[in-house]
Structure formats: C-alpha cells, structure tokens
C-alpha cells in the first residue's frame, strides 16, 4: 500500500463524506419526523447547484468581486431560496397526503423529483453547466518529489470547515433551542406534542426547511469545488446521501453525519485502491448489505416504527 495514496484518499474521503453528511441529515430528519423517505431531497441539492451559479452571476454583474464576500453571499442566498423549495415541496407534495396511506407520499416524492428535474432541464437546458473557479490552489503535505505529495485544496478546506460549522449550528438548533426541542418532541410523539400546544404542521415545515438548507450548503460547496453540474446530479448524490443516512441509522442526526463520513471514506478508499468506475456500485452494494444485516444502521434504534 502506498501511504501517499492512502492519505490522499482519506483527505478526499473526508471531503466527500462532509458533502454526503450535509445531504443525509435532510433525509434522516424528515424520516424521523414523518416516517417517509423524501425522494425529492436529491433534487433540492441539484437546485442549489443551479442557484449557486445564478447568484454568482448576479453578484458578478453587480461588481462584487472579493471571493470571501462572494462565497458567503452566494451561500446565504442559495440557502434561503433552497429552503423555500424545501418548504414548498412539503406543502405541495406531502402535506395533503398526511393522513393517507404510507405509500402515497412516497409516490408523490418520486413525482416531485421528476417534476423538479424536468423543470430545471427545460428552464436551464440539459447540457452540463459550469462556473468559473473562485478558489484555487491548496496546500501540499509530505512533499517528496514531483509525484509524491498529499494535496489539500483550499476548496476542500472550505467544504470541511463549512460542513463542520453548519452541522454544529444544526446540532445547537436541535439540542439547544425551544424550536429544536419541539422538533424532537414531534419526532418522539407527534400527538402528545400537539396536546402540549406544539403546532406540528409548522414543526414539520421547519424540518423540511432545515434539511433543504443543509443540502443547499452541500450544493453550493460542491459547485464551488467542481465548477460543473447538470440537472441529473441530484439523483446519484441523493442516493449516496440516502445510503449514508441508512448506514448511520435513519432517523438519527449524529448517525447521518457519521454515515456520511464512513461512506465518503470507504468510497474514496475503494476508488483509490480498487476501481474508480465501480465506486457507485460499491456504495449501493454497501446500502444493500446494511439493509440486510443491520437495517437500524450504526446509531439507529432497532425498535423505531413510525405509524
């Protein structure tokens, strides 16, 4: 084994894992609160990529140039508009089905996902889109000749730091505020929360808004890093993040973060040492294995069954 390749893949894995984790928290929180998989969540991430490009262009037109200012403003604007998408998706596709069968919202979610993909395809075109690089360069560690080094780009550092800060903020919101307490109450016993005066519809909206905002952070960061995207990126990344949520234990917030990290690291190491072309197959095989052997995931509670 080559130590440089291993370390490089670990670095890449942590970055990838941060992205998966940011999206996975949306799946896990929605599942925790209404017991359904929001299959349109990957599209929310895709829309954030497009919004990032749109806001970047708008700020450039306004003459705002300084990279830190641009990055922060694009991030905040994208989060705000993506949150609105998250809120609307719940209102339009799920809330009317609140008291129907378990299957109905799942079908509605898949429909919503197709609508969003095609809306973006028609409005923005099917071809690959790109944005100019804002952040280049990086740091090289253990440099040992022209081919022998571990590189951490500035964009990667931005991804990991922003992911940690947003996860920390989310954690505080859920564990340390009255609104977060209400979210946890609704998750544990929705009827009892309502009997104590909690507006449960509002809390469910809050959870969709939070999940979409976190996916927006991922969409913006990845777009700054890779520069290119198309209307279909939400599909594969969405399923990967869903895998991360299941791996960590669906319904568990720390589980989603941990699952993202574990998936990112193992996928990266698989690409580095086995095969890059099969890395998606690897991730989905992992999902199947977890579902067979440990459906409650790493940090989930086996007894959880939502009605």
């Amino acid at each position, binding site marked *: 084994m080559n130590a440089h390749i291993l370390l490089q893949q670990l670095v890449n894995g942590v970055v990838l894992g941060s992205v998966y984790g940011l999206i996975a928290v949306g799946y896990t929180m929605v599942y925790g609160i209404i017991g359904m998989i929001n299959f349109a969540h990957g599209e929310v991430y895709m829309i954030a990529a497009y919004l990032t490009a749109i806001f970047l262009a708008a700020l450039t037109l306004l003459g705002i140039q300084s990279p830190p200012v641009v990055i922060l403003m694009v991030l905040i604007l994208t989060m705000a508009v993506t949150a609105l998408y998250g809120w609307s998706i719940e209102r339009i596709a799920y809330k009317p089905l609140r008291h129907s069968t378990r299957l109905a919202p799942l079908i509605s979610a898949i429909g919503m996902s197709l609508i969003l993909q095609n809306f973006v395809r028609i409005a923005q075109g099917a071809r690959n889109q790109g944005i100019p690089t804002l952040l280049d360069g990086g740091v090289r560690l253990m440099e040992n000749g022209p081919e022998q080094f571990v590189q951490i780009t500035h964009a990667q550092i931005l991804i990991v730091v922003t992911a940690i800060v947003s996860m920390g903020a989310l954690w505080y919101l859920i564990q340390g505020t009255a609104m977060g307490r209400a979210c*946890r109450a609704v998750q*544990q016993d929705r*009827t*009892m929360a*309502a*009997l*104590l*005066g909690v507006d449960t519809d509002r809390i469910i909206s809050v959870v969709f808004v939070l999940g979409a905002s976190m996916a927006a952070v991922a969409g913006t960061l990845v777009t700054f890093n890779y520069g290119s995207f198309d209307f279909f990126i939400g599909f594969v990344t969405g399923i990967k993040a869903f895998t991360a949520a299941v791996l960590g234990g669906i319904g568990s917030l720390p589980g989603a973060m941990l699952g993202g990290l574990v998936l990112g690291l193992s996928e990266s190491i698989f690409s580095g040492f086995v095969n890059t072309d099969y890395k998606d197959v690897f991730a989905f095989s992992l999902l199947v294995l977890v579902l067979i052997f440990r459906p409650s995931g790493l940090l989930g509670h086996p007894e959880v069954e939502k009605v």
Partner: protein
Amino acid sequence: MNQREPILKVRGVDVAHGHTPVLHDVTLEVGLGEIVTLIGANGAGKSTLLMSLFGLPRVARGQVVFAGQEITALPTHRIARLGLALVPEGRRIFPAMTVRENLVMGGESVNEMVLERIHGLFPVLHDRAGQRAGTLSGGEQQMLAIGRALMGRPRLLLLDEPSLGLAPLMIRRIFQALREIVVEGTTLFLVEQNANQALRLADRGYVLVNGCIRMEGSGAELLDNPEIRRAYLGGH
C-alpha cells in the same frame, strides 16, 4: 347539580373512531374550581372522550365549550394553548428527552415558580432532572406526566387513569399529590377505573357505560349507590 361557573361544557356529543361509534349524546360540565370524576369500565369510551376534547378525533355531533369559547373545530395545539391540559393514558412522556426537558415542553415559557412548585410536589423530578425520562419507573413517569401538564398552569387539568398499572403505594402518592394540586385551586377532571379513590376525591362524578352517561351525582352519593358499588367498587 353544579352551581359554579362552568369551565368546560360538553353538549350532546357523539364521537366515532372511523366508522365505529363510541360516544352517544354525552353531556357533562365541569365548574371552575371543581373536582369532577368520570368512572366507567374498560372500553366505555373514557379516553375517547378526553381526546375528543382536543379534536382527536373530532366530535361528529354536538359542541364543546371551554372557558366560554367554542373549541369544537379548533386545531389541537390551539385548544391546548387555551389552558386545557391532559395527562394522557399511558403517560406519553418523551422518552429520549431529559426529565427537565419534558417539563419544559409543558409550558410555552419556563416559569421558575411553577417549576419549583412541581419540584415540591414531586421531588424526584428535581433529583432526576438531567436523566433520560425513558429510564424512570412507571410511577415516576406518571409524576412527570402530571408535572408536565401543570407547567402551563392549566385552567383545567384532565387526567386519564393516572393510577393505571401502578403499585398501591404509588397510587396513594399520586392521589396525595392530586389533593395538593386541588388545594392550590386547580380544576380537575379525573377519569378513573379506580372508582373508590376517585369518588372520594371528587365533588361530583359521572358514570359512563358503553359510551353513554348513565348516572350523575356527588362523590358521596355515587359511593353509596349500591349499583355503583357492585359494578365498580367490587362491593356486594
């Protein structure tokens, strides 16, 4: 009959679970400052009546008036915020939250005086404040459910079989606490199968049989009624 200003009026209420009718033309009243009990056998519809006050499920016919306001069609959380609090059957504490967090869930904001009063009533809730509520014993969870309901300083406290599944000593402690709550001026509507304790505590009582109010009277009257003694008090 009740002479005081009524805080709760239930008028000719029918309630069904889906297509199964459960309550038929139920009419009752709770006056401000009163202790009223509703006794009835398992499956009579007691819990259904309490939940339907919150619209879970909504009444199919009739009217519910709380503190002078018709609440029949209000959303559940709005009804709760009017000052109607329920200690539900099976306690329904939030198991993954701490004891303190459970209490805080009961009020819109934390009132330290109210919290202190509840800690005085149930010292165990103070001693175990940081502990996960799911790890409490059944009796302690019942105390927590009562404490949580008191946090919002309710105008009417509804209790659904608070003695269910508890050891006799624990039942005595719960009823002792209810007496203290009453002394402080809280209005109680107590649903029980444990008719003996309930009727001795209550000013008035109703008897629910198969979803219909069958009898009504003062606590003492119902305790002396031979039919009640036979059906609910194990007497002969």
